[in-house]
Each structure stands twice: as C-alpha cells, then as structure tokens.
C-alpha cells in the first residue's frame, strides 16, 4: 500500500488513531491529562474523518453531476455533524457533569439539525421537546447530588482510559471500514413518482377536496394506468424491480386499490360516490407518502404508526407505563437504611 494521502484506507486509519489518542489524552485523570494536545489531536482526527468521507463518498447531499452540488445542504450537514461530534467529545471528556449536560443539549440540537436534513421534522420537534425536559432533570440531579467543587473519584478519574478509548475507536474504525467496503455507488432506489406525476396526483387531491370526485378519479387513472408523457406507468416501473419483496407488496396493494376504486366509480351510483371518494384518499396518500420525503410528514407518519405499527405503539405505551410505575416504586422509599432488618 503506497502512502498516498488520498487513500481512503489510510485516512480511515489516521482518523481513528488521531481521535482515539486525543480522547485518551483528554479523559480526566489525576495525572497525565494533556488538554491542548488532546484537543489538537481530536480536531485533526475530525478533519481526517471528513476527508475520508469526501474521498470515498463525495459531497453530502450532492447531485449525481458535479455542477449541481447543494452547497447550502452540504454546509448545513457539515455544521451539524461537526457540532454533534465536538459537543459529544466535550460530554465524554468534561470533568464537570453540569457542563457535560449542557454539551449534551448542544449534541441534541445538532442531531435535530441532521434530522431536518433527513426529512424528519416531526421527530426533530419531538426530540427537542423530550430531551429538553430530560436534560433539565439531569441538570437538577447534578446540582442536587454531585459535588464539583473539590476533586472527587467520580469526576476526576476514568476507568482504564487507554483501553476504553482503544475499544471505542477500534469499533469506529471497523464500522467505517465496513462502510468503505460496501457498494456505495448506488444513489438510492429510483423515486416512485416523477415530478409531473406527483403534481397531477396533488391536483387530484385538491379536486377531491373540492368535491369533484369523478375528475379526481380520472386524473388518478391518467397517472397510474394510462401513460403520461409517453413514459412507462408507475406500475410498469415498479414491475421492473419487483424482485424486492417490499416493492412487490406495495405494487400488489396499489393495483388492488386501483381496481376496486375504479369499479366503484364506474358503478355510477350517487350513494356509493361519496364512499368511493373517501376510499380514493388513502390510495392517494399511499402514493404521495412514498418516494420523496418529506411528503406530508406528520400526517403520513401518523398513518404509518397507527396502521403498520399499531401493536408496537401499544407496546411502547405499556412500556412507558411500566417504567413510570417502576421509577415511582424505586425512588418512592423514603429511607432505605431503616428498612434493612437489624
């Protein structure tokens, strides 16, 4: 292996070694902590990690051609990623747990920025709300329980800093190597709908809202069954990669929906028309909710949660209840020393 600086393997090894050494020097201990060197090493490691990602995978949020790089999105990605990693580093190496909690708040804000880039606005809001409460409670616990004025075992010592840093960053190196050796050429599955079809389906939704169910159904038929602009229909495009079981299931579901909906519309019965219009809406949601995200994030996430993951939602609620009962049962005892039989 030649020592080429653009070799991604070399960059990967360098990034993990620099980061691991930096964290090792930064971890709190009574003797031998080297803050300036540790910070320098960590920053060099982060730069090398960014260089590895760019060398191997190109710019984030970039189009397939180099002319259409999304500079704003890329800049925001680097900002939030660097923020998350820097403040995570502060949390891990900070002696004062109150400052660690503040650093964790900034980690949450940075990862919420990444959530927005990943088209998850609802999850971003939920994370900020939940973790704001969690961090405030943590902060209160630090103020109540922790003594940060004098040196103490819990804040000024680390358990095996060398072995710990080695384990964590060896893990990171292995994961990054797996990413490196994966097939990264594909830019993701083809979008389900072209932009023209998406516009026409959105038109169909507005027609449905206006009460013109027949026009809406004709528009949907145009898009999904007849050829739009001489291109293959959605069903034909999907059939070309129906080796994927999820795509095949989706295809079967949508074809079934289309058949039953169209049959009801052709019955020309006024009483059934309103029922058909109601049935057309979930079909449109199935199409518009797939492909490009964010597509009506909150509404579609709700649909997914309460249809596909209904049992899991119930389980999560039960888990929260059990955890609440457990927390009250554990923390509710006033004086545990008196309960120990003499």
């Amino acid at each position, binding site marked *: 292996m030649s020592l080429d600086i653009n070799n991604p393997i070399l960059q990967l090894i360098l990034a993990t070694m620099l980061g691991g050494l930096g964290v090792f020097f930064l971890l709190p201990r009574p003797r031998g902590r080297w803050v300036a060197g540790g910070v320098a090493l960590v920053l060099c490691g982060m730069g090398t990690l960014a260089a590895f990602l760019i060398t191997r995978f190109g710019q984030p949020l970039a189009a397939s051609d180099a002319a259409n790089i999304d500079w704003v999105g890329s800049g925001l990605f680097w900002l939030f990623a660097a923020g998350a990693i820097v403040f995570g580093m502060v949390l891990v190496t900070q002696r004062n747990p109150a400052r660690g909690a503040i650093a964790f708040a900034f980690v949450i804000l940075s990862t919420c920025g990444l959530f927005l880039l990943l088209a998850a606005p609802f999850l971003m809001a939920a994370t900020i709300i939940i973790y704001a409460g969690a961090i405030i409670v943590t902060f209160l616990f630090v103020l109540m329980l922790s003594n940060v004025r004098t040196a103490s075992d819990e804040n000024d010592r680390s358990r095996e800093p060398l072995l710990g840093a080695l384990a964590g*960053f060896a893990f990171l190196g292995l994961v990054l190597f797996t990413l490196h050796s994966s097939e990264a050429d594909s830019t993701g599955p083809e979008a389900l709908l072209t932009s023209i079809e998406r516009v026409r389906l959105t038109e169909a939704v507005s027609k449905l809202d206006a009460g013109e169910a027949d026009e809406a159904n004709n528009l949907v038929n145009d898009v999904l069954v007849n050829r739009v602009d001489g291109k293959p229909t959605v069903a034909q495009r999907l059939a070309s990669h129906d080796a994927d079981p999820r795509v095949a299931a989706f295809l079967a579901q949508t074809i079934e929906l289309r058949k039953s909906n169209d049959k009801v519309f052709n019955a020309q019965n006024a009483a059934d028309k309103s029922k058909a219009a109601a049935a057309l809406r979930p079909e449109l949601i199935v199409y518009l909710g797939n492909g490009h995200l964010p597509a009506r994030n909150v509404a579609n996430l709700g649909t997914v949660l309460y249809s596909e993951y209904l049992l899991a939602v119930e389980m999560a609620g039960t888990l929260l209840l059990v*955890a609440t009962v457990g927390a009250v049962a554990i923390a509710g005892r006033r004086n545990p020393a008196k309960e120990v039989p003499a």
Partner: protein
Amino acid sequence: MITLWHFLGVGATLFALGLVGFLTRRNLITMFLCAELMLQGVVINLLAFGRFHGTLSGQAMGLFVITVAACEAGLAMALFLMLYRRGKTLDSGDWQQVRETGVPAATDAVPLPLPPADDEPKLPVPGLRPEQVAAPFPESSRA
C-alpha cells in the same frame, strides 16, 4: 439526492464516542448521558436508512427508540437517587462489591490532588481605636 453514507459515518462516530464515555467515565450521570449519546447515533442511522429507501419506517423506529430512551431516563434517575441515598456518592466504582466473583477489585493508584488550603483567618487586633489601624480587614481575609 441524499447520500446515505455521510450520515452513517456521523452516527457511527457518535455511537463510538458514547461507547468510550460509557466504558471509561465513573460519574453515573455522565455515563447515562453517554448512553443517550449512543442512542442518538442509532436514531441518525435509522432516519438515514429511512430517507434512503423513501419510507417512513425509519422515523417510526426512531420514535420507538426515543420512547425507550425516555423510559431509561426515568428508571436511571430513580436508581441514581436510591444509590445516592445509600452511599452518598455518584461514583460507579463505589458499587464494585456487586462485581462478578473472582474478578479483582479495581484500585486507584494515583491519589487525587488535594484541594488548595485556605489561608488562616487574620483577625484584627482587639482593643485598638479604629483610626489607629490602617487597614482593619486585610483584603486577603474572607471574614
């Protein structure tokens, strides 16, 4: 077009950082925050894969991870409170008597630095008239 790999790299880095912190730090609250850091890395991975495949399943899974994290936070705080009431400490090393049998106890070789000693208080000489004393309360005194 979104690229999956950069987000996977960031998620893996956050997970590794949290792992290092959880393995090495001894303050129970810091260890808890490091576990939350690992969960954040996992959620970024889930959302990145969901975005890559154009489905909402990743976001649903992310919501469940946050739910479990909330349960974990509540139970962890209750346990910390109990442990603090028993031992008046947040040091996880003080609970090492519950370790596996046959594992030697971890000891701290290097002593902690002593806190800087305060100067002894300097009291003014009693029985003197105030104008006879130039500076009755020296600035170094905290009294």
